[in-house]
């Protein structure tokens, strides 16, 4: 309860706005089939690049599709994908990082080498290569994003675990007879939940931006999927005359990333037990 109060406290006014943004964006994405006034993929060549009007709230795009409808649908794939990627990365990172950090020894050495190798590989280029190898599509983006980000996650988790391993409550449970499995599941993992949640939110934000970047290079989500990153890219030739075409989806990306990061920030403050301490005197 204190945590929740602290969380709300550390959210601040910006945080509250962020939560509202997140709810609106997620909600409208989920409810897109009911909210959207048009089929997002319905092409109307006679109405190409229509301006903003009562009929088309955000005008139409180069194929006469209703931009507002596309915008409503535009978060679905990215957000779901970002979520899936982050969950997968988190699981992989959690398993690898925990085992390496907890047991140390050769297991840690091997993991460390693996982490260094994957971190030493150039991120976006690597992602391009994987996406190219596996062919375009959601699945290969998923794999590319997971492969390029598990190492970061594992490293952070490993560091956390090594810190926790030194705490005396770990020795305490061993003295009572807890085996490794028990210690890991009941003691190690729950105690890094804070940093993990924070990392999780930061990652989601970053993955959403990565998806947009890949789409920018033509390797992201395949047409005609309505997607914010793709929409920004598609609007580039027209944005001088139709600024809203690039502003609306770009703003959506920025806002959702902003909101998620902000909430992660507040979570960090709330979950950080240090903030509860009094300062020098404690």
């Amino acid at each position, binding site marked *: 309860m204190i945590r929740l*109060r602290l969380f709300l406290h550390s959210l601040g006014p910006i945080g509250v706005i962020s939560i509202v943004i997140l709810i609106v964006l997620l909600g409208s994405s989920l409810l897109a089939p009911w909210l959207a006034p048009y089929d997002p993929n319905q092409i109307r060549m006679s109405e190409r690049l229509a301006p903003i009007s009562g009929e088309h709230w955000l005008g139409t795009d180069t194929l006469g599709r209703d931009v507002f409808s596309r915008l409503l649908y535009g978060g679905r794939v990215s957000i779901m994908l970002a979520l899936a990627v982050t969950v997968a990365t988190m699981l992989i990172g959690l398993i690898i990082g925990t085992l390496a950090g907890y047991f140390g020894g050769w297991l840690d050495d091997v993991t460390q080498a693996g982490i260094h190798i994957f971190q030493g590989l150039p991120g976006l280029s690597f992602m391009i290569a994987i996406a190219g190898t596996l062919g375009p599509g959601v699945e290969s983006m998923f794999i590319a994003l997971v492969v390029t980000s598990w190492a970061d996650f594992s490293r952070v988790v490993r560091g956390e675990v090594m810190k926790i391993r030194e705490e005396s409550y770990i020795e305490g449970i061993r003295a009572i007879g807890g085996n490794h499995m028990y210690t890991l599941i009941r003691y190690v993992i729950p105690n890094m939940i804070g940093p993990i949640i924070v990392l999780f939110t930061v990652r989601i934000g970053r993955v959403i931006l990565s998806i947009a970047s890949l789409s920018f290079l033509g390797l992201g989500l395949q047409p005609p999927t309505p997607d914010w990153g793709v929409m920004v890219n598609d609007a580039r030739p027209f944005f001088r005359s139709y600024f809203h075409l690039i502003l609306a989806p770009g703003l959506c990306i920025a806002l959702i990333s902003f909101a998620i990061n902000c909430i992660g920030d507040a979570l960090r403050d709330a979950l950080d037990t240090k903030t509860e301490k*009094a300062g*020098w*005197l404690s």
Partner: protein
Amino acid sequence: MKWMEKEAVVMEPLLSIEQLTVTFHTPKGKVKAVDGASLTLHQGQIVGLIGETGSGKSVLGLSIPGLLPGTAEVSGAIRFKGQDLLILQKDCLRKLRGTEIAFVPQNPATSLNPVMRIGRQITEAIKAPFSRKQKRAIAARLLEELNMPKPSDTLQQYPFQLSGGMKQRVLAAIGAAGKPSLLIADEPTKGLDALVRDQVVGLIRRVATHTGAAILVITHDLYVARSLCDAIGVMYAGEVVESGSTEQLFAQPKHPYTSGLMRSMPGKGMIPIPGVSPSLMEEHRGCKFQSRCSQRLGECEWKAPDLYALQDQDHKVRCFLHDSSRGREQGVPERLVATAEA
């Protein structure tokens, strides 16, 4: 040393704390860490502040040089050489720090900057307009006076290269560097083994003799307090419940808490005071010790006792048992059964 004490009595006190109250504003509510504490300190005196964990000793110590964090609200008066430090300008107070009032924090392990050489950390505290070289010489001499082996080598070292006792000496040197007239040492012996503790006690004595400064030693080690101090103040839950000369206090502790504390010492039978100390967050009526007190009176429950002076003007006690106005010996009418054991 005797003559100094005598002179001190005559003179105006160097430091007098009157009705000091420190309240912290935290997200969970107000914490009244110091609650109307009063204390006086004379020139050249070593005064000890004892009491259990969390009773507000450190907060009191920090409030003198104005080092409390921003969340603290301070009221009352702290008169140092006639000046009220609480109403002094921030910058004037800063100038007093180090030169007039020095503070040696508790926990030597973390109180030195880990990435700065010892030499720099000491010379920083020397305010007089000397050259760097001169300052270093002063620092080396200070360390030497404090029995540091190879003082000039130490200046080149980093804190992690020193043992706990050596760090304590460095901290003392920093405190003494500005030739202050008041030195406040917070828990200088906490966590040290007997040998090192012995050294540290000697060290503080040496600082006192060398600089002639008055020293306020905050500690919860009664042995240290007894062997080092001229006078002692006892704190409980933010209040100074008893103060007086060391001999008097140890020989005849007047406050029930003080005597309980004495009895808790391993050498004195180790009889614990039952119960736990009160929360600092709640408002209190009556005496704060009443729930654990075996000599509780009826009025203790609703009336807070004042600090009453005993015949010996230096000895003061915050307990109705020693309220001279109500007649010293007759004053135990309704002794209640101690309930704190439950």
